[in-house]
């Protein structure tokens, strides 16, 4: 393991980038995902269609393909973002499809009666969703969203393929110098494990905190 200690700064830089990539793209995914879930339960058929197309598109395209397309394709039409920004956008768009489906399953667990009661009070569809349905739907899907967070953390390693020096990429570079793949990648693996273990614990805490008395 002293290989890892010798290159500690490379590893900590990598972990920092991985954490930034994870946090920013997760925040984006959560936001987009909730909006897409709202589209999918909208009373307007066209909006439901948009939501469905979004989810089907991003769930059925490999993340690596999306990353390469955005990184090398967008500049061809004159749009060029920094690599890190591109990776954040792509991962957020991709994971949002999964968040949307998790949130939608949560929405389906909230009784129709509560939605009717909200409408009967005079709340608009948007208000019912925001004030009554989503707060309950989200509490019910803390665990699945936690799992998506963990998957997202792992998926950030694909950003290495498009030039972002996150943990996996950093490990690769160290290994090029040291030629000791096993300790180097065990080190990187431990980094991911720590992030995901903390995420798992937090998920549990949040789930207990927001649980609804039923």
């Amino acid at each position, binding site marked *: 393991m002293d290989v890892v200690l010798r290159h500690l700064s490379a590893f900590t830089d990598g972990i920092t980038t991985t954490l930034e990539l994870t946090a920013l793209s997760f925040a984006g995914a959560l936001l987009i995902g909730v909006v897409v879930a709202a589209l999918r339960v909208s*009373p307007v058929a066209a909006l439901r269609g948009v939501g469905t197309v979004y989810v089907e598109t991003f769930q059925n395209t490999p993340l690596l393909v999306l990353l390469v397309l955005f990184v090398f394709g967008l500049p061809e039409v004159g749009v060029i973002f920094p690599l890190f920004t591109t990776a954040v956008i792509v991962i957020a768009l991709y994971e949002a499809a999964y968040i949307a489906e998790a949130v939608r399953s949560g929405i389906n667990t909230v009784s129709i009666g509560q939605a*009717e*009661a909200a*409408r*009967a*009070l005079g*709340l608009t569809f948007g208000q019912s969703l925001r*004030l009554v349905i989503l707060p309950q739907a989200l509490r019910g899907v803390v665990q699945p969203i936690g799992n998506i967070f963990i998957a997202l953390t792992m998926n950030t390693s694909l950003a290495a393929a498009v030039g972002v020096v996150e943990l996996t990429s950093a490990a690769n570079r160290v290994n090029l110098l040291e030629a000791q793949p096993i300790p180097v990648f065990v080190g990187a693996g431990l980094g991911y494990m720590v992030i995901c273990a903390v995420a798992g614990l937090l998920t549990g805490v949040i789930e207990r905190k927001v649980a*609804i008395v039923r």
Partner: protein
Amino acid sequence: MKSTSPSSAVLTPMVEARAINKSFGAVRVLTDVDLTVAAGEVVVLIGPSGAGKSTLCRCLNRLENVDSGVVLLDGEELPAEGRALARLRTEVGMVFQQFNLFAHKTVLQNVTLGPIRVKGLSAGDADRQARALLDRVGIADKADHYPAQLSGGQQQRAAIARALAMQPKVMLFDEPTSALDPEMVNEVLDVMVDLAREGMTMVVVTHEMGFARRAADRVVFMADGQIVEVGTPETFFTAPTTDRARDFLSKVLSH
């Protein structure tokens, strides 16, 4: 809420349903139903299961879309969709069989949500009004409890308070006691009787014949998606004119 007395407002139809038709798929549930409820009037809808009572009640605030026909509220036609409908719905309170309280909010928050978000009341005003209403329905001490911590009767009283908080012109009750254990039925009916006495315009779908006798101005008997007989409780329960009503009453009153 105590301002309207039955005698003074009887000329204005508060709710008017004209030629309502409604099907669920191939099943016709309402056929050419007309119903007029005067301001301050208490109308009880009774009839056998599947008669269309609940559907009619839900059509009155357009929770259920009608296939044809119009619903007028205080002279104004309810639109099919959108914000205008949402605005008019604030004037119609609704109480459901399953209470439908918001599970993630306390009783107090359930009651203040509409006034704050829809009517734009300040949190303080909404709070004071809500506590007064909860006191009136007898569950002031449950204000900070969550719905799941309440008995069925308490939940239904909270739901009534929630509907009243919007200061509606009319209250719809869709089988409000059907989901309750027998010992809790009266605590809810008592609140409803008080409300009726105070002059609230009410449409009540119920199987509680006692309530109909005590509080109704008119009883509307429905069967097979149509209104079959209308009368005062006195005449309806003692001298029904149709065979269907007689048949129905013999079944529900024989025990």
